[in-house]
C-alpha cells in the first residue's frame, strides 16, 4: 500500500489515489479518534505531509468551525492537489459514514420503536455521553491554562445549558471576552 514517494513537499498524488486514501480512512476510523487515523494515513504510510505540517494543519482545523476530520481533509487535499484535491479528499472521508448513517435512518424507521432496539440505543447513548466527557476533558487539558480559562468554560456552559442562551450569542460574547483577555500585550503594537 505504501508508495515509494519522496518526502519532499508537495508530492505528486493522483486524484484517484487521494480519494482512495481518504475513503479508506473514512471507512476504517471507527469509534472517533479520527486524528490518529489521519496521522497514520497521511504522515506515516504515505508521507504526504510531515509531522510539523500535520500539527500546524491540525491547529488550524481545531480553531476554525467545522469538524477536525473534514477540515483536515480540506487542508491536506488543497495542499496536495488544490481545489479538486479538497473536494475529492472530503468526499472520500465523508462517503462511508454518510452511507452508513443514511442506512441507519431507514433501519431506525423499521425497527427503532422495538423495545429491544430502544434498550440498545439507550445503552449506547449513555456510553456516548461517557465518550463526549472524555473528549472534553482531553480538549480541556490542552487548552485550559489559567483560572480565567476555567471561568470562561463555566460561564459559557452555564449561559447555554443553564439559562438557554443561544449558542451564537454565547460564542460571540464569550469569544470576544476570552480573546481580549489573552490579547497580545508583551510588546507595543506595530
Amino acid at each position, binding site marked *: 500500500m505504501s508508495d515509494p514517494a519522496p518526502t519532499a513537499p508537495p508530492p505528486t498524488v493522483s486524484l484517484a489515489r487521494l480519494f482512495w486514501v481518504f475513503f479508506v480512512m473514512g471507512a476504517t476510523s471507527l469509534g472517533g479518534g479520527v486524528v490518529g487515523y489521519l496521522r497514520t494515513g497521511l504522515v506515516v504510510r504515505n508521507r504526504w505531509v510531515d509531522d510539523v505540517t500535520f500539527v500546524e494543519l491540525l491547529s488550524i482545523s481545531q480553531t476554525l468551525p467545522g469538524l477536525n476530520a473534514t477540515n483536515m481533509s480540506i487542508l491536506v487535499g488543497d495542499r496536495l492537489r488544490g481545489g479538486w484535491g479538497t473536494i475529492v479528499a472530503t468526499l472520500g472521508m465523508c462517503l462511508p459514514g454518510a452511507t452508513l448513517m443514511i442506512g441507519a435512518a431507514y433501519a431506525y424507521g423499521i425497527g427503532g420503536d422495538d423495545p429491544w432496539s430502544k434498550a440498545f440505543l439507550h445503552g449506547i447513548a*449513555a456510553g456516548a455521553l461517557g465518550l463526549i466527557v472524555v473528549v472534553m476533558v482531553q480538549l480541556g487539558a490542552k487548552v485550559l491554562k489559567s483560572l480565567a480559562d476555567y471561568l470562561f468554560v463555566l460561564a459559557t456552559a452555564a449561559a447555554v445549558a443553564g439559562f438557554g442562551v443561544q449558542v451564537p450569542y454565547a460564542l460571540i460574547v464569550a469569544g470576544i471576552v476570552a480573546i481580549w483577555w489573552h490579547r497580545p500585550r508583551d510588546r507595543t503594537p506595530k
Partner: protein
Amino acid sequence: MKQLGDLAGVFAYLSLLTVGGGMAAFPELKTLTVDVHHWVTFPQLLHYYSLGQLAPGPNMMMVASIGTVVAGLPGAAVALVAFFLPTGVLTWGIGRLWTHMQTWRWRPAIQTGLGSVSVGLVLAGAVIMAKGAVVDALHAAIAAVVFLLLLKTKVNPAYPIVASGVIGILAYWLAGIG
C-alpha cells in the same frame, strides 16, 4: 421543497457553531430539530447522535440520518452539503491565508480564547445530552464507567459504546429496565 429549504438553513447554521467539534453545536441541534421543527424526538436525536459516534469518519454524519428522516435521500444530500459546505469554504480560504498569519500577534490569543469557549460549549452540550441519556442509575453508571475506561486506557471507544448497548439489552431482558 419547503422541508429541503428548512434542512439547508438549519444545518448550514449549525455548521458554523461547530467550534471545537460537533458537540459544541448540540444545544442548538436539539432546539432546532426537536423543539422548533419536530423532525425527531429528543430520545431519537440522542440515538442518532450516539450511532453517529460509532460510525467511521467525521463524528457528525448523523446529520445525514436527520436529513433522511425528513425528506429521504434528497434530504440526506441537502443536510450533508449544508452542514459541510459553509465551514468547508471557510477552512479552505483561511487555510490558504494561514501561512501569512503565522506571525500575526493575535493568533495565539484567538486560539487560546476560542479554545476555552469551545470547551464550555462542549460542556453545555454534554449537560443537555445527559438530561436525556441518564434516565436512571444504571445509565448513569454506564456513562461513568465508559468515561473512566476511556480516560485511563487507550481502548477504541467503539468497543465500550457497543458494550453499553449490550448492557442496555441485558438490563431490559433481566429486569425490564429500558
